[in-house]
C-alpha cells in the first residue's frame, strides 16, 4: 500500500486473495487424508474437510470478478487523467 502505481495496488489485492485461499485450504487439510471421491478404498471419515474447499471455490470466482472490475476502473481513470499515479490524478486541471 506504499506504492503510487494503481496497477501495483491491484496486484497487492490479488496476492492477499491468494494468501487467504491457501490459509483456508490448509485449515481443512488432514494428514494422510483421502481425496473427496467416493470409491471402494476411500473411507468417508478419513477425508479432507470439504467445507473450506467449497468456500475457496466461491472466493476464487468472486475474486476474479472483483479484479476485473478494478482493472476496468483503472483503465477508465487512465483514459481520463492520462496517468496511473494516484497522487497525480486529482491535480490535473483542464
Amino acid at each position, binding site marked *: 500500500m506504499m506504492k*503510487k502505481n494503481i496497477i501495483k495496488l491491484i496486484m497487492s489485492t490479488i496476492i492477499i486473495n491468494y494468501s487467504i485461499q491457501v490459509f483456508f485450504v490448509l485449515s481443512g487439510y488432514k494428514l494422510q487424508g483421502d481425496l473427496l471421491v467416493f470409491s471402494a478404498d476411500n473411507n468417508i471419515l478419513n477425508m479432507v474437510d470439504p*467445507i473450506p474447499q467449497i468456500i475457496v471455490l466461491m472466493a476464487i470466482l468472486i475474486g476474479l470478478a472483483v479484479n476485473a472490475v478494478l*482493472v476496468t476502473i483503472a483503465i477508465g481513470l487512465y483514459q481520463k487523467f492520462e496517468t496511473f499515479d494516484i497522487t497525480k490524478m486529482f491535480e490535473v486541471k483542464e
Partner: protein
Amino acid sequence: MTELVVLLIVMIIGAVVALEIKDLLSSVVIIGALGLCLSVGFVLLKAPDLAMVQLVVELILMVILIRATVIEDKHDNNKKRENAYFFVVISSLVVFLSAAFFIIRKLPIFGKPIFRISYAYLKDLNINALGSNILASLMLDWRVFDVFGCMIALFVAVICVLLLVKGKRKI
C-alpha cells in the same frame, strides 16, 4: 510435506519480488507464476477441483492485467509515497500481527481439522443422486443457495465491466 513448504516459501518470495520490481510487465508475469504455483499447491493439498478452477481463473486474470499494462505511462511512477503513509502501514501491520498471534493459537492443530459439520454432511449424503465427486454433490445439494449468490455476484461484475467500457466509448 516438504514440497509444500518449499512451494509456499517460493510463493512468498515471488510475491515480494512482484511488488518490488520496477517493470510492470514482468511483475504481471510473476503474478501469473504465483497463480500456477497456487494451483500446484492445491493439488498437493488434495483439492484437484480447486486446482482446475484456479488454473482457468489465473489465465483470464493474466489477459486482463496484460491489457492494463500495455498502456504506456509517461510519468515516472515507481516512487513511494510520503512518510506519513509509512507510519500508517507499520502501525496497522503491528495491530494485525498481534491480533493474528492470539487467534492462531486458538486454531486446531495442522492436519487435524474440526470435522463436525462436514461429518453431518458426509454422513447423510446421497451417493446415487449426484455422482461420486463429493465437492460437486455438496455444492449442488447443501450449498446451492451460496452458489446462487456467487453467480449473482459474477453477473453483476460482468454488467459493471460492460457499462464502464460502453460509457468510455460514448465520451
